[in-house]
């Protein structure tokens, strides 16, 4: 499967990355080379094999549902590009 230039633009949009026409042209063969190469996994018979998501052989741990941390608003906001009135500021969302 290879991607087209329109698909490259579509993927970039999904990934929230702005691409110039020049960037898209440059990325097209690079992505297709990589995708062609990973195609070889098609040779492997994986019928009946369960997908492996994590290598750690243990039960997911649950913890008590209570607040263990908090009251650190200023710390949380300390790296925000534009904090406003104790919140994260963003460009206007609703007209």
């Amino acid at each position: 499967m290879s991607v087209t230039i329109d698909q490259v633009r579509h993927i970039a949009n999904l990934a929230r990355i702005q691409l110039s026409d020049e960037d898209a042209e440059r990325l097209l063969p690079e992505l297709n080379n990589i995708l062609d190469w990973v195609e070889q996994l098609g040779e492997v018979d994986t019928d009946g094999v369960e997908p492996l998501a994590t290598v750690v052989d243990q039960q997911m741990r649950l913890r008590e549902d209570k607040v263990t941390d908090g009251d650190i608003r200023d710390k949380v906001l300390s790296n925000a590009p534009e904090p406003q009135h104790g919140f994260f500021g963003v460009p206007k969302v609703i007209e």
Partner: protein
Amino acid sequence: MSDLTNLTLAELRDGFRKGDFSAVEVAESFNEAVAGADALNAYVEKTPELAIEAAKAADEARSSVSLKPLSGIPLGMKDLFATEGVLTSAGSKMLGNFKPPYESTVSANLKAAGAGMLGKLNMDEFAMGSSNETCAHGNVISPWRREGSNAGITPGGSSGGSAAAVSARIAPGATGTDTGGSIRQPAAFTGITGIKPTYGRCSRWGIVAFASSLDQAGPMARTVRDCAIMLENMAGFDPKDSTSIDAPVPQWEAGLSSDLKGKRVGVPKEYRIDGTPAEIDALWDQGVEWLRDAGAEPVEISLQHTKYALPTYYILAPAEASSNLARYDGVRYGLRETVEGGGLHDMYKATRSEGFGDEVKRRIMIGTYVLSAGFYDAYFTKAQRVRALIKQDFRKAFERCDMILTPTAPSAAFGLGEKTDPLAMYLNDVFAVPASLAGLPAMSVPGGLDKDGLPLGLHLIGNEMDEQTVLNAGLAIEERAPSIQLPEKWW
């Protein structure tokens, strides 16, 4: 004073305890060496005051006999570990001004063990790269050079700043992280030692995430013993990381023994890859002989899905990365770029386009594609199934052997700018990636030099939770391999 920087971590620890020198003398020597090594571009942020502060505490503790395991030791910290109040940029413009209000568990563990911090070490952006040519702070230059040449050599990646710092003796040890070989390949390229423990041994909490099911922290140092010492003080259960292994940390240093009698070393036939330079294969054979000399019996094993490990990795790692890196949106931390009159969506795009470098964008794009509707099963689920087979290969192999020996990388370090094709760069991780996919402990130890005088590494893979066997086999090789002279200072 500069001779203190030539000592190993164990020698520094023991000499300090005996009273041969003070911790402040050690910290000052390293601070001075760091200040004089800007040409290597290994440190992106220096923290000499933190090194001195920890050293003063160590000197005071020496008189009050409340010494900690790493009292008197200054370390370099890969810039992927969140360090409270100190720049943590992950090698990216995206986090160019990020000062975390918290400390990663691994760096906190090292601090609690008495270690000081010399500074933050340069790395490939978000740990994506094998040569330190994708750093927002510029390339790291290896202290190594080819014989008769002054051309810049890569220290490997992504923990290239850590590798360069240890081999240039501007840190006695440094933290690294390994997702698909990022500790082992740079260790091999710079003639030092590095171990990636079993996935889950070291907490990932506070380490900037690349591919969460693979990322694992580990030490990089001059010797196997130094790695054991550091790892003991990095590892441990952490309730803040859901994949952290709830098991006690063994005393790896005390358990060190290069007597491998009764052990079997597996030599996987699938790792003989066409096009590998003859000297790499020769070193591998030599490594088998060294382990035999230490008492181990070599056995041929088969890891039949080896060929598929790299393509599996280059689906899974970008997929997880595209998801993890979605958090860089310009809202809560890091860079923000806005567009005149634009909305939130425009801000996301402008920020991410400006903040991420080419390799990171390429991997986010691949990851987004393989996770997108219609392709998810064909790529992502398929890769997870192949991953299961790769893990099964290792499980079967460890029924026949106790450790596996391979080369670390298919070549010695290459020159900066020599590899420009992304795919060719990915192939550099061919020997390192399978152990990452299986979550197994794996280590690189120096084996010798190539025809140009550059270091080559041997790679040991162990069974789950069995770092001790890996370290012991590493020690056996270290005792038998020609000792590598670290490069003379030219920087």
